[in-house]
């Protein structure tokens, strides 16, 4: 898509959130670096459901810190990268689009009918009207619903398949890149980790990642992350992890009970992950309901 820096993956940052826009990069992050992120976009061909989502892939801030620190990825300031195209660039873009179009029509008109051709549309309208007439006959007292607008299709206008650009592979896209976190931080593009809690989260995340675990968002399970032994596509998570940012932090017994109870109810153990800033050490404790009685 765009030139990469020694094989590193571009993370497009806007509003202090990192997105991955390339399908290959999503696959590489998953398979090679066991970083999953969260798909947040609408799948264009299945847009009325929330089970399967599409690009962009949003990364957890901890994942971004890890990937940049390990030299796997770099940060692109997406707000600053989109320049204003000149007239020539625009004309060029349009030319290219038309040329691609000129090759297309033979295929689209004969072999592959569009999703709804005029005849099908007509049939569908007829069916709709029939249905409405039936409904009206049945429940005359009801107020008639708003008539659906007739589709604004004229036979004069040539219709063809248009592809809305997903990624910015325009000639006027100049990636403004940052190789290290410090560079990005000084320019104000990225600020995580900012507080001691966030630093602790990043350290624990890195430690778990180095041990080969996959981490996912733990919001729905009452923790910071879910910890998976393998790719979440195929395996269940074993732990719900909560980061304790300091060894002297108070944990109330009621929290322990809540963690134990919640973990058991979801067939997981709760993992308390401690971070000691002085010793630069992580420690882990898991909580499980003992189940006596």
């Amino acid at each position, binding site marked *: 898509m765009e030139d990469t820096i020694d094989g590193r993956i571009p993370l497009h940052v806007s509003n202090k959130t990192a997105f991955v826009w390339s399908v290959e990069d999503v696959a590489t992050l998953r398979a090679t670096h066991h970083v999953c992120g969260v798909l947040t976009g609408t799948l264009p061909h299945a847009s009325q459901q929330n089970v399967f989502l599409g690009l962009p892939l949003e990364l957890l801030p901890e994942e971004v810190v890890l990937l940049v620190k390990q030299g796997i990825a770099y940060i692109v300031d997406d707000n600053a990268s989109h320049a204003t195209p000149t007239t020539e660039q625009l004309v060029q873009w349009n030319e290219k689009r038309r040329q691609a179009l000129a090759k297309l029509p033979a295929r689209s008109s004969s072999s592959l009918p569009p999703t709804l051709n005029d005849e099908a549309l007509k049939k569908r309208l007829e069916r709709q009207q029939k249905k409405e007439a039936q409904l009206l006959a049945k429940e005359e007292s009801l107020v008639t619903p708003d008539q659906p607008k007739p589709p604004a299709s004229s036979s004069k206008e040539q219709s063809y398949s248009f592809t809305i650009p997903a990624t910015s592979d325009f000639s006027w896209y100049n990636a403004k890149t940052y190789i290290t976190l410090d560079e990005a931080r000084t320019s104000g593009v990225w600020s995580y980790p900012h507080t001691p809690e966030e630093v602790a989260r990043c350290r624990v995340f890195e430690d778990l990642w180095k041990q080969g675990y996959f981490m996912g968002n733990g919001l*729905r399970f009452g923790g910071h992350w879910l910890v998976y032994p393998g790719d979440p596509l195929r395996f269940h998570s074993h732990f719900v992890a909560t980061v304790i940012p300091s060894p002297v932090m108070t944990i109330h017994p009621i929290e322990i009970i809540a963690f134990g109870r919640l973990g058991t109810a979801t067939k997981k153990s709760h993992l308390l992950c401690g971070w000691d800033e002085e010793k630069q050490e992580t420690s882990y404790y898991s909580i499980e309901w003992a189940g006596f009685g």
Partner: protein
Amino acid sequence: MDAASESPQAIIKSDVNAPEEDKSDSGDDEQMLDWSKIGPKASKGVQKALPKRGEKAFEPIAVGPSAYQKFTLDRAREAMSEALSTPREIQTKRLSQAIWMPQYSLARVTDARGTVFDTVGFTIKRNDHKHKRLELLPEEVLYMVERGSMLCWRESSNVLPNIKEDVNDPVQLVGDPMSAQQCFAEMLGVGGITLEHYQVYAYLKRFGYTVRRAQSLPGYHEYAVYRHALPAVSFLSTIRARLTRLWNSMNSIFQINWWSRFHPGIASYFQRTVHYPSLFKSFRVIPSFTPSRVVPLEPSSNYNVFFHVWKPDSPWNRLTPPRPDFDIVVINARTTPVPTIDELTMLFGTLPNSSYQPTQKVPVKKLQTPSGLLARYLAWIRGLLQSQSTAKGNAFAHLKAGKKSVIFAVVDAGTTSLYRFNEGCFDEWPMI
């Protein structure tokens, strides 16, 4: 439950690598997404049912992934990649177009196709154009671009007016073409909308709900917003509240059942009429509290209602939107804590009582008929002051639903969870 799950079963599971299958509801969030069911080929109108989730294994085999595990994983990843790489292809016949105007953080629609436009945006007449035009908010444009039904242009001074070559082409160069990626970068963080807001918006829109801003757009009275009627604080009601308070305090002095201060056994010895309701009543030091004045949240507060949401089948009108079915507050899980009691009180103060009504209203029966002129007179005043007496029905349904409710959409790095906060109404449903 534990014993049941550990007891041996006669049925052999199809997947030998899955000794622990997650069948519980709570594990539902985490079941495997079978991406093979949503490949690009499924789009041709063949598949009508929603895709289902598949099964997962417990863990990879300790020695290293088995051939079977590797095969299923590779297949799952492949299917996912394939589904992700589907282009946003659309017939120009159905393609809507808009021009993004960065100076207003709005987009004007140049070509509207489909019924989706019935519930988005607002019409406005600007000085540079002689007609009213439909303009869209950032989240609305972004959502349409993302689902592949709109091509968005960015207003540009570099477009030559005589660039038209093919008049029949529905796609004309009217600005800089914007990619979905560019829309994400440029339309969020402006016009009062953050990424979290957008994610909640898109989540609800994908389900088919009608979603609109709950606060009016600064500078645009054309954007109609439903306003919940605030409880009218009239002079009369203030006086009534004062009188009620006075009445209650007088009551508490004169009507104290002194016997009840004793042990119930002793009390019942002296006074035969002592029973549990009267005992419990005497324990209620502060019966209930309702703030007499509505103090709204600061306009900058994160806990203000951000979206009004209507169910897909409810009739809707752009100029006079009906009462929303849900009020939604959007919260970033990483930066915003749970609201304090004060903040919740302020939030609920501006919301109306929830539309949930008991199916049947049974009038309260007076248990004791007061005797004596004074007692009857007092009872009459009491009835006057507490005219909204509680109606009996299924108390628990009401207690659970609460008096008012608001939904908090909590977003953590792309994951959204919705929680309902209800204002309790225990004072209206005393158990005794």
